[in-house]
């Protein structure tokens, strides 16, 4: 495999007296799906916010394409090719798919020296890109609100890919979805990975992670418990690591291994 | 015309008849519209509504009352324009802001609609816009009449309590009063402000500093009510001559117990009733009074209170 596209080295993040991240190291390669697992409060959100430029690390280093990085704000990160798809906050239900797709990056055409929104271009590209992801829209003016949760995630992912994301951070894209929609999103992740984009997939669902992940990093209480490669670890082991060991084993026993 | 269309028209006519809430059978068919500047919240104008309704009923004309809901004079200008467009026989309107209303009113006059100015405005302004006449209470004349009456009742030295010094027209009442008494206004006019306790204390201070004052004029309930309280406090209630403009609950009470000698009523009923009657007679027989009509001052004394109380808010 080639060099990692992004390396997070010993990242620490303190909020006042609270230590959210206590030295986390992760590297992500192009074309892999790197799953970041952890229970609620493990520090996943803080970690990806650091990666996408929302937070500045208290200590540690981020190396992106071989160079140390210092993002001033999320727009810098976006411009560099690090895109984040948030669980809820990335689509506007009342707006059409094509308006959403180009939100913040509207295509322009000049008529008589004045810049106008190029709707024809936007509509064409949107339909095309969505077809590539396996979603047939009724039309580019269909409102996002009429799409299912999985389809919305797919639009958001397609948008990030179209605008040249090299690292795609997915923040719990499957947590609120049904079985079939989850399958759709996972299929989308697979497609994106095959295009050579590094995917960082945040989840606390081991099965979803196992379905598409190439490597797995477990966060617990602000620390990483190591990175495992697909095939070297079982879902049960991952589950235990996320929960922090002992108690979960007992709980699981009483639940008959269903969790 | 197809029978379907006829039926439709008929149905429409029937519906329109029930739709029309506007008053009275129009025996002679004239239509008069009264436009005021008062917001909906101003209940004083209820008397006006009743006045035109009664007049319309008596002369058999259709009458309508219109006002800008918020009292916005610019909206009032639109209402006058609209009234003009609907082609009535006459428009009765106040002249609350000469600059704004001059245009719409003259346009109505120029289209052959008779206009009478009521309540607000002056006879001179009414003439300038081309109105037939002015019906209302000219402030100076009302003050003058009050002064004449007060002189007969023995007033020689007075205090005029003015709570609306920023409105020059209201101040005219004091000037007229002084001229009626035949004495110089001098510094008898007090800028009292509108705060009740301030007014009361100013009046008390003025009266103790000027013991020769034997008459007081207040220009409305705002200045009258605290003045009543002041006189009751220093024991001059009933002993000093006291006249006031306009009526109100406290004023009526004070007239009753003798603190106030009389209240000057501008008689809004007449401001509404007279123009309708005059317009109807002008339209039918071509007769018109040769001058403006002063609806006030009507002096309300203890003896006349019964009618005021009976018709308060309705015709008084």
């Amino acid at each position, binding site marked *: 495999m080639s060099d990692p596209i992004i390396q997070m080295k010993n990242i620490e993040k303190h909020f006042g007296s609270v230590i959210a991240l206590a030295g986390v190291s992760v590297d992500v390669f192009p074309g892999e799906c790197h799953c970041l697992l952890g229970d609620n409060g493990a520090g996943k959100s803080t970690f990806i916010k650091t990666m996408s430029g929302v937070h500045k690390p208290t200590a540690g280093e981020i190396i992106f394409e071989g160079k140390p990085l210092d993002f001033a704000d*999320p*727009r810098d990160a*976006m411009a560099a090719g690090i895109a984040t798809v948030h669980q809820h*906050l*990335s689509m*506007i239900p*009342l*707006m059409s798919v094509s*308006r959403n797709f180009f*939100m*913040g*990056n*509207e295509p*322009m055409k000049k008529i008589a020296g004045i*810049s*106008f*929104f190029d709707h024809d271009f936007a509509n064409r590209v949107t339909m095309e890109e969505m077809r590539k992801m*396996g979603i*047939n829209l*009724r039309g580019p003016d269909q*409102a996002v*609100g*009429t*799409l299912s949760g999985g389809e919305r995630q797919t639009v958001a992912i397609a948008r990030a890919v179209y605008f040249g994301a090299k690292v795609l951070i997915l923040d719990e894209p499957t947590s609120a979805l049904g079985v079939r929609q989850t399958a*759709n999103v*996972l*299929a989308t992740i697979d497609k994106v990975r095959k295009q050579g984009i590094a995917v960082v997939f945040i989840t606390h669902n081991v099965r979803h992670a196992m379905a598409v992940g190439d490597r797995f990093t477990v966060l617990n209480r602000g620390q990483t418990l190591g990175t495992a490669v697909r095939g070297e670890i079982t879902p049960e082991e991952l589950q235990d690591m996320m929960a922090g060991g002992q108690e979960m084993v007992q709980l699981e026993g009483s639940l008959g291994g269903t969790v | 015309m197809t029978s379907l269309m006829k039926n439709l028209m008929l149905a429409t006519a029937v519906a*329109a008849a029930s*739709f*029309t*809430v*506007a008053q009275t059978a129009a025996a002679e068919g004239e239509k008069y519209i009264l436009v005021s500047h008062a917001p909906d919240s101003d209940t004083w104008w209820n008397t006006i509504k009743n006045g035109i309704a009664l007049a319309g009923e008596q002369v058999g004309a259709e009458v*309508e009352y219109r*006002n800008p*809901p*918020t*009292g*916005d*004079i610019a909206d009032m200008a*639109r*209402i006058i*324009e*609209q*009234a003009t*467009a*609907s*082609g009535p026989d006459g428009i009765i309107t106040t002249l609350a*802001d*000469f*600059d*704004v209303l001059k*245009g719409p009113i*003259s*346009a109505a006059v*120029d*289209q052959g609609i008779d206009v009478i100015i009521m309540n607000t405005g002056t006879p001179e302004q009414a003439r300038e816009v*081309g109105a037939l006449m002015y019906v209302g209470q000219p402030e100076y004349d009302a003050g003058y009449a009050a002064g004449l009456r007060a002189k007969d009742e023995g007033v020689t030295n007075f205090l005029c309590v003015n709570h609306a*010094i*920023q409105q*020059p027209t209201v101040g005219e009442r004091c000037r007229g009063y002084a001229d009626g008494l035949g004495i110089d206004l001098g510094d008898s006019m007090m800028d009292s402000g509108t705060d009740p306790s301030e007014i009361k204390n100013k009046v008390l201070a003025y009266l103790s500093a000027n013991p020769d004052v034997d008459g007081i004029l207040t220009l409305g309930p705002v200045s009258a009510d605290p003045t009543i309280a002041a006189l009751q406090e220093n024991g001059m209630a009933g002993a000093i001559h006291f006249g006031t403009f306009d009526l109100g609950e406290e004023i009526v009470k004070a007239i009753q117990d003798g603190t106030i000698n009389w209240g000057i009523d501008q008689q809004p009923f007449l401001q509404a009733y007279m123009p309708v009657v005059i317009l109807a007679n002008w339209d039918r027989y071509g007769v018109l009074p040769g001058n403006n009509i002063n609806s006030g001052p009507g002096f309300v004394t203890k003896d006349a209170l019964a009618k005021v109380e009976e018709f308060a808010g309705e015709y008084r």
Partner: protein
Amino acid sequence: MADTTDTDERIKEISPLRRALIRPELGGMVGTVAVFTLFALFAFDSGMFNSQGVMNWSIVSAQFMIIAVGACLLMIAGEFDLSVGSMIGFAGMMIAVFGVVLAWPMWMAILITFVICCGLGALNGWIVVRTGLPSFIVTLAFLFILRGFTIYIPQTVERKTIIGGIRDAAEGDWLAPIFGGKIGQPIFQWLGDMGVIGVFERGTRAGQPVVDGIPMLIVWAIALIIFGHILLTRTRFGNWIFAAGGDAEAARNSGVPVNKVKILMFMFTAFCATVFAVCQVMEFGSAGADRGLLKEFEAIIAVVIGGALLTGGYGSVIGAALGALIFGVVQQGLFFAGVESSLFRVFLGVILLFAVILNTYIRRIITGER
């Protein structure tokens, strides 16, 4: 997983009717047709449809339109401005103070007033985005603050609450006619001569047409509607307006400068209010402390009738313009139809209720809520 999901068999094809229903202008269009039909039936010979009557409700509607365009874009951007009415009174008073009391040239008074009012709009917006307080509260505060100054300033400098003489002061000014003038006089004179429209029967203007031109107020209304519509639907900034009102957080995540958009929309609303005020004082020649009372609600009502959602993110300038037209025609038309004027509020309430219910239904269709 299959490569194509094809069409989801559970989503029914949307019928053309429903498709038309989700256009925000639809309610406005239906309402406009209904209102005109109603008044054509009930008030046709009442003078409502002669030249003067048409001009009357056109001007009233145009007034609503001017402030509705601003309120509409602001509402789509997710905010309200309750200070519009007070801004109208304030702007008129500023022109009177600068142009009459201080006797500056009228063009300068107008321009300075625009600068001050847009600045106040920006302040409104800045406070809203900075504090995160609901714009309802912030602009409510400005409703009182501006109205207070509108009464205080003329009382202090002139000892009265109405300042006149603006028309005389504007005589010969180059900028004033753009707000207070009329266009198309020759056409109307010709129509009057031909007997198509009514002429004055007597007085100094005898022989001149009663309606002698199209007031600039109407021209401004049309210009602002066209500008607002193109801005909203055909430009990048329009997309940002929708985004800022639809979901500010999502818009920020996508790199939309939400705060800038909102502040600019507050400024545009203030601009529209100032246009309204300048047209008014130029036409009437005086500024009063009570001008513009409750106009903010009339603007919001017109926008809501026109199909915009109170929660932001959805609406149309054309719809708002139609809402303003309905508002104006109903307000003036009820009078022509001979309906007691106090019933106007009843009609207004009914229309408003219908519009809001329709809007809620539309949003359910769009967002697929059940």
